[in-house]
């Protein structure tokens, strides 16, 4: 039963689409600080690559979402799957693609 409710929870979050406003704030904070630790506060890159819109241009959504969720082998990019859903990652990606950072 516990498993079923967990499954149900996972399914509902997966179908929920865009994260709640509260979750969006958490994700932005995560992006700023934790992604920023390697990709820079301005996201122009550091130990990690640049995450500015022009750097992501031409790279397919699913490729970048799976990079966020599963990490990238042979690099320092860790899998964020334990900490976020597919929808979270998709939202982060659209945020990165459309937002011009300071």
């Amino acid at each position, binding site marked *: 039963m516990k498993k079923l409710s967990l499954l149900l929870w996972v399914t509902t979050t997966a179908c929920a689409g865009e994260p709640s406003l509260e979750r969006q704030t958490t994700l932005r904070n995560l992006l*700023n600080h934790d992604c920023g*630790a390697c990709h820079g506060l301005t996201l122009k890159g550091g130990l990690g690559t640049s995450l500015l819109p022009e750097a992501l241009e031409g790279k397919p959504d699913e490729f970048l979402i799976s990079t966020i969720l599963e990490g990238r082998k042979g690099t320092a990019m860790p899998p964020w799957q334990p900490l976020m859903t597919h929808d979270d990652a998709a939202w982060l990606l659209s945020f990165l693609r459309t937002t011009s950072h300071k």
Partner: protein
Amino acid sequence: MNKTLAFLALFLSFNTLADPRATGDLGIVIEREDGNALIINTTDHKRLAKIEKLGDLSHASVVFSRDQRYAYIFGRDGGLTKIDLLKDAIDKRIIQAGNSIGGAISQDGKLIAVSNYTPGGIKVFSSDNLELVADIPSDYGDGQRSKVVGLVDAPGQRFVFSLFDAGEIWVVDLKNTKTPIVKKFPNIGKQPYDGLITPDGHFYIAGLFGEPGLALLNLWNIDSGVKRILPDYGKDDEKLPVYKMPHLEGWAVAGDYIFAPAVGQHKVMVINKNTWDLHDTIAVVGQPVFVMARPDARQVWVNFAFPDNNHLQIIDVKDLSLRKTLTPGKAVLHMDFTPRGEQVWVAARDDNQVVIYDTESLQEITRLPAKQPNGIFFSSRAHKIGL
């Protein structure tokens, strides 16, 4: 009227008398998001001044002049700022690269070296006027340039650093700044992520991210080359995700032991300094980031990567046991000890606080407000090799 004048003169002279400030118990707290540096006093637990507009300080570090009057702040955006701790003001500020990670001050205090990601290499400046005195690009392979990490000063007016992408360690001798002598050690291992020099200046060690083990260079005998230590450590264990690169600054050296963060494991490694074998491991709550010894090395304080970064754990070196787990606040990013270690200042970024602890009782003494603090650096670093 005369009386008023006399009073005024007296008042003014008192003012001048009150003005001189000693700098041996000062420090800098970095406010990440706003790009500010707070000048603080560790004896009075006071904020003395705020220096603003220092650029991107998301990964800032600070070194101090040997007279402890100036702090040099290295920003992520390549900014290098010299701050006058007596005047609460910027003495000079330059943008020396596009993307940088840290810096060091030379043995004689006359040179400031900065390690850069873009364009990769180190640049060396006069500590007096921040004029460029040497530029050493980190060229490797087929015209590539590597990101530079783990830059430290070493005895003999040298700087030592690691090339993240190239897997090399370089030693630069700057006795003559016009003709720097660079000695390169290739194939030291994959992705060195940071380096440290032991407090006696004897060994440089680079931590490896891309493969197990550490790269060790004996600076008393650099011709013997770089040797791999702990090559088998964690080889067969599943590597846990690392959400923040560990640091090796302030690596704890206590007696025969060196304490270091394990990469991809929630453990602190205890390495025997005589044999360079693993003596023990200590299980901790998360991926260790800073593993720092109290100045007397009786305790080792450990903070952690996201998502365990609200914790701080204290190891008792006497029996290698975990003495206590503290929760100072959200996102504990950095700490520094007072010169002789009776107190430690801890940056809790997401709580906008600096928390000060008594290291003996492990009780909180007080808190100071700071906006998203991510780095704490005391002027006592001025006289320590490698800091």
